[in-house]
Protein backbone atom coordinates (compact mmCIF):
# COMPACT_ATOMS: atom_id res chain seq x y z
CA UNK A 1 0.00 0.00 0.00
CA UNK A 2 2.69 2.47 1.05
CA UNK A 3 4.85 1.20 -1.80
CA UNK A 4 1.97 1.90 -4.19
CA UNK A 5 1.74 5.48 -2.98
CA UNK A 6 5.51 5.97 -3.39
CA UNK A 7 5.32 4.47 -6.88
CA UNK A 8 2.45 6.74 -7.95
CA UNK A 9 4.13 9.86 -6.55
CA UNK A 10 7.42 9.06 -8.34
CA UNK A 11 5.77 8.34 -11.69
CA UNK A 12 3.56 11.44 -11.55
CA UNK A 13 6.52 13.67 -10.62
CA UNK A 14 8.49 12.11 -13.48
CA UNK A 15 5.68 12.95 -15.90
CA UNK A 16 5.60 16.55 -14.62
CA UNK A 17 9.33 16.86 -15.35
CA UNK A 18 8.77 15.32 -18.79
CA UNK A 19 6.13 17.97 -19.54
CA UNK A 20 8.54 20.68 -18.38
CA UNK A 21 11.21 19.31 -20.71
CA UNK A 22 8.83 19.16 -23.67
CA UNK A 23 7.59 22.72 -23.08
CA UNK A 24 11.20 23.85 -22.74
CA UNK A 25 12.15 22.36 -26.12
CA UNK A 26 9.45 24.45 -27.78
CA UNK A 27 9.93 27.69 -25.86
CA UNK A 28 13.66 28.11 -25.27
CA UNK A 29 15.37 30.52 -27.68
CA UNK A 30 18.24 28.64 -29.31
CA UNK A 31 19.82 25.26 -29.98
CA UNK A 32 21.89 25.18 -26.79
CA UNK A 33 19.15 26.13 -24.37
CA UNK A 34 16.85 23.63 -26.06
CA UNK A 35 19.44 20.93 -25.48
CA UNK A 36 19.24 21.78 -21.78
CA UNK A 37 15.54 20.96 -21.80
CA UNK A 38 15.84 17.96 -24.13
CA UNK A 39 18.87 16.31 -22.66
CA UNK A 40 18.48 16.87 -18.98
CA UNK A 41 14.86 17.43 -18.17
CA UNK A 42 14.62 13.85 -19.31
CA UNK A 43 17.35 12.53 -17.03
CA UNK A 44 15.40 13.21 -13.86
CA UNK A 45 12.03 12.24 -15.30
CA UNK A 46 13.28 8.93 -16.69
CA UNK A 47 15.03 8.29 -13.40
CA UNK A 48 11.86 8.94 -11.41
CA UNK A 49 9.57 6.90 -13.67
CA UNK A 50 11.96 3.94 -13.71
CA UNK A 51 12.56 3.99 -9.96
CA UNK A 52 8.79 4.21 -9.53
CA UNK A 53 8.38 1.10 -11.69
CA UNK A 54 11.11 -0.70 -9.75
CA UNK A 55 9.30 0.11 -6.51
CA UNK A 56 6.07 -1.16 -8.08
CA UNK A 57 7.81 -4.46 -8.89
CA UNK A 58 8.91 -4.80 -5.26
CA UNK A 59 5.37 -4.46 -3.90
CA UNK A 60 4.90 -8.19 -4.57
CA UNK A 61 8.17 -9.31 -3.06
CA UNK A 62 9.86 -12.41 -4.45
CA UNK A 63 13.15 -13.25 -6.14
CA UNK A 64 11.91 -12.87 -9.73
CA UNK A 65 10.53 -9.40 -9.06
CA UNK A 66 13.71 -8.44 -7.22
CA UNK A 67 15.71 -9.40 -10.31
CA UNK A 68 13.40 -7.33 -12.52
CA UNK A 69 13.85 -4.37 -10.19
CA UNK A 70 17.61 -4.90 -10.46
CA UNK A 71 17.42 -4.82 -14.26
CA UNK A 72 15.38 -1.60 -14.16
CA UNK A 73 18.05 -0.17 -11.87
CA UNK A 74 20.72 -1.08 -14.45
CA UNK A 75 18.73 0.75 -17.14
CA UNK A 76 18.59 3.79 -14.85
CA UNK A 77 22.35 3.76 -14.33
CA UNK A 78 22.89 3.43 -18.08
CA UNK A 79 20.67 6.44 -18.77
CA UNK A 80 22.39 8.54 -16.10
CA UNK A 81 25.64 7.66 -17.84
CA UNK A 82 24.66 7.94 -21.48
CA UNK A 83 22.43 11.02 -21.35
CA UNK A 84 25.09 13.58 -20.34
CA UNK A 85 27.55 12.03 -22.79
CA UNK A 86 25.21 12.34 -25.76
CA UNK A 87 24.13 15.84 -24.71
CA UNK A 88 27.77 16.88 -24.53
CA UNK A 89 28.48 15.36 -27.96
CA UNK A 90 25.58 17.21 -29.59
CA UNK A 91 26.46 20.54 -27.96
CA UNK A 92 30.10 20.24 -28.93
CA UNK A 93 29.14 19.36 -32.51
CA UNK A 94 26.89 22.41 -32.54
CA UNK A 95 29.66 24.70 -31.35
CA UNK A 96 32.14 23.35 -33.87
CA UNK A 97 29.59 23.67 -36.65
CA UNK A 98 29.19 27.34 -35.74
CA UNK A 99 25.78 27.62 -34.11
CA UNK A 100 25.57 31.03 -32.49
CA UNK A 101 25.08 31.21 -28.74
CA UNK A 102 21.97 33.25 -28.07
CA UNK A 103 22.51 35.80 -25.32
CA UNK A 104 20.01 38.23 -23.89
CA UNK A 105 20.58 41.80 -25.03
CA UNK A 106 20.66 44.04 -21.95
CA UNK A 107 19.38 47.07 -23.88
CA UNK A 108 16.09 45.64 -25.21
CA UNK A 109 14.07 46.47 -22.12
CA UNK A 110 14.95 50.17 -22.19
CA UNK A 111 14.30 50.38 -25.95
CA UNK A 112 10.84 48.96 -25.48
CA UNK A 113 9.95 51.61 -22.88
CA UNK A 114 11.12 54.98 -24.21
Amino acid at each position, binding site marked *: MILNVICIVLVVLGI*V*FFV*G*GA*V*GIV*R*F*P*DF*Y*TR*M*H*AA*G*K*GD*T*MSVFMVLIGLAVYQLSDFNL*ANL*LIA*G*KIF*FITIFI*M*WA*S*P*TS*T*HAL*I*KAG*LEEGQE*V*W*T*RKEKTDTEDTP
Partner: protein
Amino acid sequence: MHRLCIFLLLFGIWIIFSGQFDAFHLALGLISTALVTAISSEFFFADRSREAGARIQEIIRLPWYLAWMLYQILLSNLHILKLALSPGDMPEVQPRLVRIKTGLKTDFAKWFLANSITLTPGTITIDIEGDELLIHSISEVTTTGVEDDAMERKIASIFERGND
Protein backbone atom coordinates in the same frame (compact mmCIF):
# COMPACT_ATOMS: atom_id res chain seq x y z
CA MET B 1 43.91 -9.51 -8.74
CA HIS B 2 42.17 -7.09 -11.05
CA ARG B 3 41.16 -10.00 -13.27
CA LEU B 4 39.35 -11.55 -10.31
CA CYS B 5 37.52 -8.28 -9.65
CA ILE B 6 36.39 -8.02 -13.27
CA PHE B 7 35.36 -11.66 -13.29
CA LEU B 8 33.22 -11.30 -10.14
CA LEU B 9 31.70 -8.05 -11.43
CA LEU B 10 30.74 -9.56 -14.77
CA PHE B 11 29.45 -12.74 -13.17
CA GLY B 12 27.25 -10.73 -10.81
CA ILE B 13 25.81 -8.84 -13.77
CA TRP B 14 25.24 -12.16 -15.56
CA ILE B 15 23.29 -13.53 -12.61
CA ILE B 16 21.10 -10.44 -12.37
CA PHE B 17 20.42 -10.39 -16.10
CA SER B 18 19.78 -14.10 -16.55
CA GLY B 19 17.79 -14.78 -13.39
CA GLN B 20 18.30 -18.54 -13.82
CA PHE B 21 20.01 -20.45 -11.05
CA ASP B 22 20.23 -23.97 -12.47
CA ALA B 23 23.62 -25.55 -13.15
CA PHE B 24 23.36 -25.19 -16.94
CA HIS B 25 22.86 -21.42 -16.97
CA LEU B 26 25.43 -20.82 -14.24
CA ALA B 27 27.97 -22.89 -16.20
CA LEU B 28 27.22 -20.89 -19.35
CA GLY B 29 27.74 -17.73 -17.31
CA LEU B 30 31.03 -18.97 -15.91
CA ILE B 31 32.35 -19.86 -19.37
CA SER B 32 31.33 -16.63 -21.07
CA THR B 33 32.47 -14.47 -18.14
CA ALA B 34 35.86 -16.18 -18.12
CA LEU B 35 36.14 -15.69 -21.89
CA VAL B 36 35.31 -11.98 -21.70
CA THR B 37 37.69 -11.52 -18.77
CA ALA B 38 40.50 -13.25 -20.64
CA ILE B 39 39.99 -11.15 -23.77
CA SER B 40 39.29 -7.70 -22.35
CA SER B 41 40.72 -7.52 -18.82
CA GLU B 42 43.53 -5.28 -20.09
CA PHE B 43 41.06 -2.49 -20.89
CA PHE B 44 39.42 -2.23 -17.48
CA PHE B 45 40.98 -0.36 -14.57
CA ALA B 46 43.78 0.81 -16.84
CA ASP B 47 45.37 2.83 -14.03
CA ARG B 48 46.62 0.24 -11.56
CA SER B 49 49.17 2.44 -9.83
CA ARG B 50 47.07 2.70 -6.69
CA GLU B 51 46.54 0.00 -4.16
CA ALA B 52 43.33 -1.95 -3.79
CA GLY B 53 42.70 -0.44 -0.34
CA ALA B 54 42.61 3.08 -1.75
CA ARG B 55 40.24 1.91 -4.47
CA ILE B 56 37.89 0.38 -1.94
CA GLN B 57 37.89 3.61 0.07
CA GLU B 58 36.92 5.50 -3.08
CA ILE B 59 34.07 3.07 -3.70
CA ILE B 60 32.85 3.52 -0.11
CA ARG B 61 32.89 7.32 -0.38
CA LEU B 62 31.17 7.33 -3.77
CA PRO B 63 27.52 6.66 -2.71
CA TRP B 64 27.45 9.75 -0.47
CA TYR B 65 28.52 11.86 -3.40
CA LEU B 66 25.90 10.23 -5.63
CA ALA B 67 23.15 10.94 -3.10
CA TRP B 68 24.23 14.59 -2.87
CA MET B 69 24.39 14.68 -6.68
CA LEU B 70 20.84 13.34 -6.93
CA TYR B 71 19.63 16.10 -4.62
CA GLN B 72 21.43 18.71 -6.76
CA ILE B 73 19.90 17.25 -9.92
CA LEU B 74 16.44 17.46 -8.35
CA LEU B 75 16.95 21.10 -7.29
CA SER B 76 18.20 22.27 -10.67
CA ASN B 77 15.56 20.26 -12.50
CA LEU B 78 12.96 22.21 -10.56
CA HIS B 79 14.79 25.36 -11.67
CA ILE B 80 14.63 24.32 -15.35
CA LEU B 81 10.95 23.45 -14.92
CA LYS B 82 10.32 26.92 -13.50
CA LEU B 83 12.22 28.51 -16.39
CA ALA B 84 10.34 26.53 -19.01
CA LEU B 85 6.96 27.42 -17.54
CA SER B 86 7.71 31.08 -16.73
CA PRO B 87 5.46 33.44 -18.67
CA GLY B 88 6.35 36.01 -21.34
CA ASP B 89 9.80 35.99 -22.95
CA MET B 90 11.36 34.15 -20.01
CA PRO B 91 13.48 36.96 -18.51
CA GLU B 92 15.44 34.56 -16.32
CA VAL B 93 16.87 32.70 -19.31
CA GLN B 94 20.30 34.28 -19.70
CA PRO B 95 22.51 31.74 -21.42
CA ARG B 96 26.23 32.32 -21.61
CA LEU B 97 29.49 30.45 -21.98
CA VAL B 98 31.51 30.09 -18.79
CA ARG B 99 35.11 29.04 -18.34
CA ILE B 100 36.15 27.60 -15.00
CA LYS B 101 39.53 26.39 -13.89
CA THR B 102 39.75 23.10 -12.09
CA GLY B 103 42.40 21.94 -9.68
CA LEU B 104 41.70 18.28 -10.34
CA LYS B 105 44.66 16.41 -11.73
CA THR B 106 43.71 12.95 -12.94
CA ASP B 107 41.79 12.50 -16.17
CA PHE B 108 39.21 10.35 -14.43
CA ALA B 109 38.42 13.02 -11.82
CA LYS B 110 38.12 15.65 -14.57
CA TRP B 111 35.81 13.37 -16.53
CA PHE B 112 33.76 12.81 -13.38
CA LEU B 113 33.48 16.55 -12.76
CA ALA B 114 32.52 17.21 -16.40
CA ASN B 115 29.88 14.50 -16.35
CA SER B 116 28.50 15.73 -13.03
CA ILE B 117 28.23 19.26 -14.42
CA THR B 118 26.48 18.00 -17.54
CA LEU B 119 24.15 15.81 -15.50
CA THR B 120 23.07 18.82 -13.45
CA PRO B 121 20.39 20.47 -15.57
CA GLY B 122 21.18 24.01 -16.69
CA THR B 123 24.87 23.43 -17.31
CA ILE B 124 26.56 21.45 -20.07
CA THR B 125 30.29 20.86 -20.32
CA ILE B 126 31.32 21.52 -23.91
CA ASP B 127 35.03 20.90 -23.73
CA ILE B 128 37.95 20.19 -21.42
CA GLU B 129 41.13 22.03 -22.41
CA GLY B 130 43.93 21.18 -20.05
CA ASP B 131 42.60 22.29 -16.68
CA GLU B 132 39.90 24.58 -18.06
CA LEU B 133 36.30 23.54 -18.55
CA LEU B 134 34.13 25.30 -21.14
CA ILE B 135 30.56 25.28 -19.93
CA HIS B 136 27.26 26.47 -21.38
CA SER B 137 24.97 27.73 -18.65
CA ILE B 138 21.33 28.66 -19.06
CA SER B 139 20.67 31.26 -16.33
CA GLU B 140 22.24 33.35 -13.60
CA VAL B 141 21.39 30.79 -10.95
CA THR B 142 23.06 27.91 -12.74
CA THR B 143 26.06 30.12 -13.60
CA THR B 144 26.73 30.94 -9.95
CA GLY B 145 26.06 27.29 -9.15
CA VAL B 146 28.79 26.10 -11.50
CA GLU B 147 31.27 28.81 -10.51
CA ASP B 148 31.00 27.69 -6.91
CA ASP B 149 33.55 24.91 -6.42
CA ALA B 150 31.59 22.77 -3.95
CA MET B 151 31.23 19.96 -6.48
CA GLU B 152 34.92 20.04 -7.34
CA ARG B 153 35.94 19.91 -3.68
CA LYS B 154 33.69 16.91 -3.10
CA ILE B 155 35.17 15.08 -6.09
CA ALA B 156 38.69 15.94 -4.96
CA SER B 157 37.94 14.54 -1.52
CA ILE B 158 36.81 11.27 -3.09
CA PHE B 159 39.44 10.60 -5.73
CA GLU B 160 42.43 12.73 -4.86
CA ARG B 161 42.67 12.56 -1.09
CA GLY B 162 46.27 12.20 -0.06
CA ASN B 163 47.56 12.60 -3.60
CA ASP B 164 48.86 16.11 -3.13
